[in-house]
């Protein structure tokens, strides 16, 4: 390979600045609450607000529900498409790409118009919120599980399990799942990262969550919002970090079509 050119360094440096300047600025900004010196006062203020824990807790609940439902919907379907119904693959793939075609704000609009008034009134329940989150998670979850299934020999494993007398359920939980551990965990952590910071669904459906809380604080205070941004970034970093650590050697997993938020 040739020696690195000046331009290669130039573009890389520019990219580096684009990545880090906003992050560094946010951190620096969050330390400036008390005039003239750097303190963690903004963090103290952020973390002593009871509303922070309430909203953060809600987001945790939403993300756990989303992950559970998304797994329950995607895993059996992806498995079945691999094993028994390959003809359904284009249709299933099409559905998992739908969040791109119907962005969050448009989906919320449709959901509220459809289920926001009798005879079917779902807006007092968090069903629409979690459903929206599950829709958002579909591309990530399906892609993760699908990649996982491709890397193992599903048919042989299933036939081996069944010839030993295992039922479909046992095959799935005791044979297929353990082999898909890494794939499932990447889907789970990515969904977690998305739901924890999500704003559109929660805000427009009026449910408490970390995203709308951040926005609300942003409109009221200075410095604390940046402290919350640092927290949120740490969450994303943590989730993606786990995925990359789990999937060492598998590159470009996050590069895919997904819903705009």
């Amino acid at each position: 390979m040739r020696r690195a050119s000046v331009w290669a360094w130039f573009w890389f440096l520019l990219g580096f600045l684009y990545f880090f300047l906003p992050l560094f600025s946010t951190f620096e900004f969050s330390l400036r609450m008390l005039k003239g010196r750097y303190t963690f006062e903004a963090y103290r203020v952020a973390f002593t607000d009871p509303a922070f824990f309430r909203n953060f807790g809600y987001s945790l609940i939403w993300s756990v529900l989303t992950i559970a439902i998304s797994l329950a919907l995607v895993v059996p379907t992806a498995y079945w498409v691999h094993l028994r119904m390959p003809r359904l693959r284009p249709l299933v793939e099409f559905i998992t790409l739908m969040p791109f075609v119907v962005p969050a704000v448009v989906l919320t609009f449709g959901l509220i118009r459809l289920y926001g008034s009798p005879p079917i009134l779902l807006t007092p329940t968090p069903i629409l919120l979690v459903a929206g989150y599950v829709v958002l998670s579909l591309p990530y979850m399906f892609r993760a599980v699908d990649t996982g299934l491709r890397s193992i020999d599903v048919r042989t494993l299933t036939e081996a399990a069944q010839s030993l007398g295992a039922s479909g359920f046992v095959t799935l939980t005791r044979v297929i799942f353990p082999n898909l551990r890494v794939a499932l965990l990447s889907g789970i952590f990515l969904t977690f990262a998305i739901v924890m910071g999500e704003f559109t669904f929660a805000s427009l459906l009026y449910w408490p969550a970390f995203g709308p809380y951040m926005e609300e604080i942003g409109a009221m205070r200075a410095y604390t919002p940046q402290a919350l941004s640092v927290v949120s970034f740490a969450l994303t970093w943590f989730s993606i970090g786990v995925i990359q650590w789990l999937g060492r050697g598998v590159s470009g997993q996050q590069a895919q079509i997904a819903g705009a938020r």
Partner: protein
Amino acid sequence: MGFEHPVRLEPHPMDQGDAPSARPPGRRSWWGWLVVAPFFLFAILFLFLPSTSIFIRSFQGRGDVFTLDNIKAIFTTRDILNAYKLSLSISVVTAMGGALFGFLLAYAVILGGLPRVFRSFLMTFSGVASNFAGVPLAFAFVATMGNAGLVTRLLENNLGIDIHAGGFTIYSFWGLSIVYMYFQFPLMVLIMAPALDGLKREWREACENLGGSSYHYWRHVALPILSPVLLGTAILLFGNAFGAYATAYAFTGSFLNLVTIVIGAQIQGDVLYNPGLGNAMALGMIVIMSFSMVGYIWSQRRAARWLR
């Protein structure tokens, strides 16, 4: 992959009467559909019915009669046209900017001869940054280029440059474009890096053996092979920006009337004073996104001919 997890040997209670041997892999039965039924039921309830309802209501006037007025209004109402124009412009600008910058970055680390460490570093950060959108991203840029932001202060205190002097404000079209770029170009890097890796050494050698220069190689070999990937990713970035709501809302409030912002306002209260118009606006978005999707899938197919 071994069997570290032994399976139970006794038949499962639910499985009696249907011995494994009686279940050849090719046979389909009604219970096979039960496995995939929840997934499809969910998709119908929470994706297709809402979309269909938007579609139908776009063509409904007062009293649920069929009308084309809503669709016509999209093309004649100035505010709505401006919203579409603004959304389209910002999506095109950030898609092209993101694609170009992302390509150059990917080129720099993959083929530019930079140490390998930088490559994995860039890939990791692109993975994080492409998922870092929404409210916290907006706050990050307020802290960077806002009135009291770090870059603003550094420029003012050290170089005496006031970036807001010429009437420039970051809460504007170009300001929001810079913010969007933060999640746009990393996506390009993530997709472009493997594609650049997929360029075979033999192609370059073949070109050189035929007397071709570096220019010839890029003009006649590499770029034609990469162009479907470039195009497909640019379309992806376009859709990414076009559907974005949270980032724009948290960054500019409602100063910039993007299509998503107007639809959001329409949800919270009938700001267009016409429910049908809101549906037509949402439908317009679905139509534009569908075109992007078709374009993306088409370019994916073309890309698959040579790469991977």
